[in-house]
């Protein structure tokens, strides 16, 4: 059926992963052109985008892609989302091993969040192990959230769509970004074992009030006192506002990656030292807001600053209002769009809807044939916007037998 339809033509590198994800979910071929055409040094697809394409190929069956010579044009014809069943990519135990190359500047959440959006619609459970010298588990200067925030602020959202069983995100090795923000040495395993035909229709109109804040302070290869200092300043800001604030400390040694030394091939080097903080606020109605700050790869920022920054960032995220944090917007909207042919509603802060990436997402969804959003002002005086979304009703193609 997909073969008869012409490819969807899109331009620019923006929103690349979600375009591919929606392509895989809807089964439509995409043709993305003008990918960084004017960049003199790095035209075409970036390293992390190629890596994501590889991942997409591993979890699907029958995907085809053609990349132009310069890498500025890609045609992606999606296959069936199979997960890590008995496919070719899965190794023993049905775990797909995805290696991220050393030069990657994006955090592993760049791969995780879109993968989680696809996982409920796969045929078999999705088990992916992210390894290699490019896995950064912390938040990055490129704007990716940390793995802890993915686990504590993104994955619980699936519960609202009736997806909750056997979901795990194991952080096997932590890593901050390496020198110049490139590479890490972390290891993360995602198990997403709850596949559904269609996610439930969501009506989320009441943001409630923040009742608790939890967080994880991590330090990799540096002193654990950094954690204590971050936690202390952060609690100094948050405790007067939310007494139920707990931040847990996680200390780990620095990961070792092969040094690529010609004289000593077995040499290894430490990489990805640093520390950071991930905070999650939960409201009384189960809405989650997260904040993430890590020390910059160049260093030079005391942990007190990180703690304070993170606390303020959390407050800013909460102040944007609505029932969904900006970081979780695409996931929520994606799941609602893939839901049954029913109108779901969600209240979102005005700034979040007006954000460039949100609008880009909306335009892309329209291109993929989703009905437009209905927008109206919230009835309360919060200034929020209620988005009504009609589901596509396609759901899990792999589950639709006969």
């Amino acid at each position: 059926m997909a073969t008869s339809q012409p490819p969807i033509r899109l331009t620019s590198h923006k929103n690349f992963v979600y375009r591919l994800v929606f392509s895989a979910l809807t089964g439509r071929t995409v043709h993305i052109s003008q990918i960084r055409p004017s960049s003199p040094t790095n035209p075409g697809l970036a390293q992390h985008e190629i890596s994501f394409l590889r991942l997409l190929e591993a979890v699907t069956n029958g995907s085809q892609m053609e990349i132009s010579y310069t890498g500025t044009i890609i045609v992606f014809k999606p296959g069936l989302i199979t997960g890590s069943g008995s496919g070719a990519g899965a190794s023993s135990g049905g775990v797909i091993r995805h290696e991220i190359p050393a030069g990657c500047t994006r955090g592993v959440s760049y791969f995780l969040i879109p993968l989680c959006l696809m996982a409920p619609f796969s045929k078999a459970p999705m088990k992916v192990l992210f390894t290699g010298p490019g896995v950064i588990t912390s938040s990055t200067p490129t704007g990716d959230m940390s793995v802890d925030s993915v686990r504590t602020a993104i994955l619980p959202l699936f519960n609202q769509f009736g997806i909750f069983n056997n979901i795990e995100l194991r952080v096997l090795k932590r890593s901050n970004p390496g020198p110049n923000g490139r590479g890490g040495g972390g290891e993360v395993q995602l198990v997403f074992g709850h596949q559904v035909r269609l996610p439930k229709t969501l009506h989320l109109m009441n943001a409630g009030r923040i009742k608790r804040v939890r967080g994880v302070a991590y330090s990799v290869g540096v002193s654990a006192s950094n954690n204590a200092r971050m936690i202390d300043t952060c609690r100094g800001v948050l405790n007067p506002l939310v007494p139920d604030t707990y931040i847990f400390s996680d200390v780990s040694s620095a990961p070792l990656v092969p040094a690529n030394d010609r004289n000593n091939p077995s040499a290894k080097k430490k990489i990805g030292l640093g520390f950071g903080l991930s905070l999650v606020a939960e409201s009384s109605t189960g809405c989650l807001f997260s904040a993430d700050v890590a020390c910059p790869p160049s260093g030079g920022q005391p942990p007190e600053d990180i703690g304070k920054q993170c606390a303020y960032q959390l407050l800013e995220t909460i102040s944007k209002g609505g029932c969904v944090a900006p970081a979780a917007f695409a996931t929520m909207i994606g799941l609602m769009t893939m839901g049954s042919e029913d109108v779901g509603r969600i209240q979102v802060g005005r700034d979040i809807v007006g954000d460039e990436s949100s609008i880009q997402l909306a335009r892309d969804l329209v291109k993929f044939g989703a009905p437009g959003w209905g927008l109206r002002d919230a009835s309360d005086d919060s200034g929020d916007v209620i988005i009504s979304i009609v589901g596509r009703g396609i759901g899990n193609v792999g589950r639709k037998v006969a």
Partner: protein
Amino acid sequence: MIGKRKRDISAVSRPKKGGNREESPVAPEPSAQDKLRKFFEAQFQPLDVKARTAEDESEVEFDDDDEYDGDSQEEESGSESEWSGLEEEKENAPVEVVEYQAPSRPTGDIIDKRARKAFMTSKPPSFDIDLTTTELSKKAVDDEEDKDVESLNLKNDLALQRLLKESHLLESASDLAPTGKNRHKALDLRMQELGAKSSLYHQKNMPSSMRKGIKAKAVSKEDKRRREARENGIILEKPAPKKQISGGRRERGVGGPSIGKFAGGTLNLSKRDVAHVQASRRGGGKSRGRGKTRGRR
């Protein structure tokens, strides 16, 4: 001392005997208070509270040594008052005590551990850790007497609730504890309240004619009750909404056929299924979405 004050610490100063302020940078405050006092005095009796402004202090001093003339007094009063304040402080030495509290907060280790266990798993965390239970138990340990009273109250409360719920089983008000058959019924009620699926006395299998009879009887009884109530002008509760028989809206199994029943290696189509398939083929899109709703939620 002033430098210390600026820091973000809790400074607790002992109450000073003399109303001496070491400085008066808070000029607008006394004037506001003055206004308030004047307003109050206008409304009620004049107050004989001594106002503690800088001018007053200086006046008191000048009362003591009144060899200066009035004009120069006014001029010097401001500077004089400041001096007197500082000197007085040195003499009487009302020591300002500064308690420095580190901003660290006490942490409950047990709660911490439990919360940590719940949060730092590989699963998406469940935020629903009850921190109150441990706190409750701590309090209970603190005062034994309260505990006794509490337990007694709880017992009474339970007894009252049971009485309210099961009183319809009792024949007379004299014996409050049900006995015999009624006791069993009461136990059954409690079981149901605790989450039992159905009553112990619900007979699962019986001849259908008997079941029909029972249902018909129940319906007629209810009808009769309602009719009589209406005739007598009594307003009854609204009839309970009829239980909807779940009309095939359940989640279909994975990998199953979307039509028919797969058993023993064969796909069995009922007449209805066949008719449905044929109707959809013949009618095109006129099947009123019957096929669409199938197996979808």
